[in-house]
């Protein structure tokens, strides 16, 4: 096994990981930084984000307004101190990205342009046409090349954290190209490993979004917070889950049912806004949870269209005209044309809600520190929590920047203040145990169980039991099924025995992580007997602030037991829980 | 690493390529095919007429411009093409190509100026 010694290890080179790496390099050029990623940085899923990143810069906007949009959008489950901090730092971070060369779209006077987004009262989403995440990721990646202190380990699959005496002292990883185990001994580790939407069958998430980092932290004893909150994006292409950005609606796209009727007005988001003149925070610019739920109701009423990929409604952009579509939404036009054969200039695009984002994740405080000393987390894998029960579109790209940087600063402070040093011998013992566990996967007897088979069963149970609407029965069945699948995973063997670029072993490990996480989602959902944001229970349809204005905390209890679910108070500073109003009334 | 010296020849190559594209097809058609085939009549390109026309200074300049630029365009591209055919002695090839272009330039220059 190869040993690498470093000051800070970052797991994940998406938006959050790269931002953290740059912040570390800038904080102290003498630090040694090791950036591990299971794919080359520019393949990270941040590249798929289309719509944009929220931050207050325009004179008609205010920090307070961004605050109340975010907290209300999150159904008051956000920690308000975290939101406040996030909103204050957002404009600075976005401007910094501009200085690094991000090609933000512009107004005619040369200033940065902003576009409207769902759940936002004022236009504040910075965008780079409809490839915002792509440009953010590449800007960060290319900028990171400036700093020789950042040592990258590309295509290195991290499997476990190394914990010595209750402190995180590094991580273990498989170098894909050789199959060799590597132990990275570090004084601090920052997890930036992204979300885990791949536990659902229909998702906008790429193949790499399997929640490995969340599972690593969970197994190391860090609670996962608010895992039941899984965001469905209302406008995905049904065949592949490819996302048509919320920017489509921001620019004036509307949703219609099979009769061409704009059904959102029937679900508390009316009155109907005039075509081509979207009104902020109503109708199509309501928040994602509401829109996805409205779809479900339309489906129950038989108002959806049947396609070969299941039930759909229409996204109608025809009234925008070709010129505007080409200027603002060229990428999604191409996507819809290629993958669904529909040209949005002339036709309505069939769409359906698809799993998009995990509000929950590794429990951190506002300094991005987890309860486990030496471990920090940022990005989609973390839950700070600014997203509460429902993330507002375009807040998470900004979150990567703000908390990626904060995680780096906290890690530096932690190293300096506590004067930690790595216990090499103990770390090595831990790593050796991990290596033995991985090797054992290859020695399991080859049975009938296949990765694809188990994965499909996980898809079916998650989609069926833990989807947009849930109830006691569906969740009980799902948790039971997941417990069974976790058992069966123990017998799953790696069929490909070779060392070089063994994607088989990678998929087995990823599936293991997803099953652990799926169980925390279902168990947390089962325990939360209320409806809030993206978590909607058919048997408990109201929000219950007396019992559940709390974060759920899922803790690991071993390979065979389901998680323990506890609760943590939500931090409320200035906004008491109120009614989420998307009817266009003045607030 | 030192910057390449190719800009010296590339400028000529690019201008020459443009000149060649505009003029050479018609030139070949007229002077290489139509005249020899007698389309323009027996007396086309007769010595008297040609030398009279080339006697004009502006004509001299245009003709020389076309010939010389096109030659350099061709020389540079032949050099690259040799490489593409697998001949890897680039220094030698370059010397031969540009050398030939230089000689022919001198030839054309002497010829035109003497008329």
């Amino acid at each position: 096994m190869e040993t690498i010694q470093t000051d800070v290890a970052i797991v994940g080179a998406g938006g959050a990981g790269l931002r953290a790496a740059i912040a570390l390099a800038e904080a102290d050029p003498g630090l040694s930084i090791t950036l591990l990623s299971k794919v080359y940085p520019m393949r990270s899923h941040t590249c798929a984000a289309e719509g944009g990143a929220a931050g207050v810069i325009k004179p008609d906007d205010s920090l307070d307004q961004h605050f109340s949009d975010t907290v209300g959008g999150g159904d008051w489950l956000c920690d308000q101190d975290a939101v406040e901090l996030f909103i204050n730092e957002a404009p600075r971070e976005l401007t910094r990205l501009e200085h690094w060369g991000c090609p933000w779209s512009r107004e005619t006077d040369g200033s940065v342009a902003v576009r409207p987004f769902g759940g936002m009262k004022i236009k504040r989403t910075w965008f780079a046409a409809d490839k915002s995440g792509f440009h953010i990721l590449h800007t960060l990646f290319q900028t990171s090349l400036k700093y020789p202190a950042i040592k990258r380990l590309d295509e290195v699959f991290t499997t476990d954290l190394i914990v010595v005496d209750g402190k995180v002292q590094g991580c273990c990883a498989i170098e894909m190209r050789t199959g060799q185990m590597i132990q990275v001994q570090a004084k601090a580790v920052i997890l930036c490993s992204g979300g885990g939407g791949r536990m659902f069958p229909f998702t906008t998430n790429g193949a790499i979004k399997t929640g490995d980092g969340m599972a690593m932290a969970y197994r190391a004893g860090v609670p996962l917070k608010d895992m039941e909150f899984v965001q469905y994006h209302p406008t995905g292409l049904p065949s592949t889950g490819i996302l048509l950005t919320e920017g489509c609606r921001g620019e004036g796209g509307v949703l219609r049912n099979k009769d061409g009727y704009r059904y959102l007005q029937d679900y508390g988001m009316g009155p109907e806004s005039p075509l081509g003149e979207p009104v902020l925070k109503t109708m199509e610019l309501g928040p994602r949870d509401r829109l996805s739920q409205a779809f479900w109701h339309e489906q129950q009423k038989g108002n959806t269209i049947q396609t070969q990929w299941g039930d759909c409604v229409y996204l109608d952009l025809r009234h925008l005209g070709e010129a505007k579509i080409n200027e603002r939404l060229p990428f999604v036009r191409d996507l819809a044309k290629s993958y669904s054969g529909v040209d949005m200039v002339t036709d309505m695009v069939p769409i359906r809600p698809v799993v998009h984002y995990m509000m929950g994740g590794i429990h951190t405080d506002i300094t991005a520190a987890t309860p486990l000393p030496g471990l920090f987390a940022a990005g989609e894998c973390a839950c700070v929590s600014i997203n509460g029960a429902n993330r507002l579109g375009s807040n998470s790209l900004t979150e990567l920047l703000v908390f990626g940087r904060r995680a780096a600063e906290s890690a530096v402070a932690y190293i300096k203040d506590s004067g930690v040093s790595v216990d090499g011998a103990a770390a090595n013992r831990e790593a050796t145990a991990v290596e033995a566990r991985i090797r054992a996967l290859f020695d399991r007897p080859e049975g009938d169980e296949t990765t694809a088979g188990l994965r499909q069963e996980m898809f079916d149970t998650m989609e069926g039991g833990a989807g947009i609407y849930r109830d006691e029965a569906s969740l009980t069945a799902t948790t039971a099924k997941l417990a069974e699948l976790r058992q069966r995973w123990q017998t799953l063997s790696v069929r490909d025995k070779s060392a070089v670029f063994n994607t088989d072993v990678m998929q087995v490990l990823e599936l293991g992580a997803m099953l652990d996480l799926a169980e925390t989602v279902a168990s947390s959902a089962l325990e939360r007997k209320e409806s809030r944001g993206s978590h909607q229970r058919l048997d408990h349809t109201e929000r219950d602030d007396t019992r559940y204005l709390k974060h759920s905390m899922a803790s690991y209890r071993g390979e065979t037991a389901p998680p323990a679910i506890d609760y943590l108070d939500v931090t409320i500073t200035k906004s008491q829980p109120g009614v989420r109003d998307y009817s266009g009334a003045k607030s | 690493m030192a910057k390449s010296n190719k800009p010296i020849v590339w400028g000529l190559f690019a201008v020459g390529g443009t000149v060649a594209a505009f003029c050479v097809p018609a030139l070949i058609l007229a002077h290489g095919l139509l005249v020899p085939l007698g389309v323009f009549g027996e007396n086309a390109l007769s010595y008297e007429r040609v030398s009279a026309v080339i006697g004009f200074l502006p004509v001299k300049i245009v003709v020389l411009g076309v010939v010389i630029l096109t030659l350099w365009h061709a020389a540079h591209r032949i050099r690259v093409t040799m490489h593409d055919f697998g001949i890897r002695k680039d220094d030698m090839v370059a010397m031969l190509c540009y050398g030939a272009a230089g000689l022919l330039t001198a030839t054309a220059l002497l010829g035109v100026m003497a008329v």
Partner: protein
Amino acid sequence: MSRKPFVRPVPATTWYMRNGRYLRYMAREVSSLFIGLYMAGLAMGLMRLAQGPDAWNAYLTALSSPLALVFHVLAFAFATYHATTWFNATPKAMRIRWGDGYVPGPTVVRAHYALWGLVSLVILVLVGVI
């Protein structure tokens, strides 16, 4: 170490046989040989012109030999091919600003073709009357 990356060699002298795109490229490049030879001939011709009427007439006679004619047919084909590839590629290198964008590529290409037609006509007429 179990890595053993496999390098597929590229044949240095026949690589362009692999696909049509490369063959078209090579045809374009080879055009330079014909254009160069033609120009060499022309340069010689100018020299002959300076040497007097006899030399010039011998040159004209040589031009009408079958060999010369075959060469010129080929050269004409290659030169024309060169011209089309050159004009089609100009918008790539030369971008002319037009408002908040550039003059569209096809427009630039069409303008070149129009000018080409004009220049060719002038050349034909001039040679014809001389």
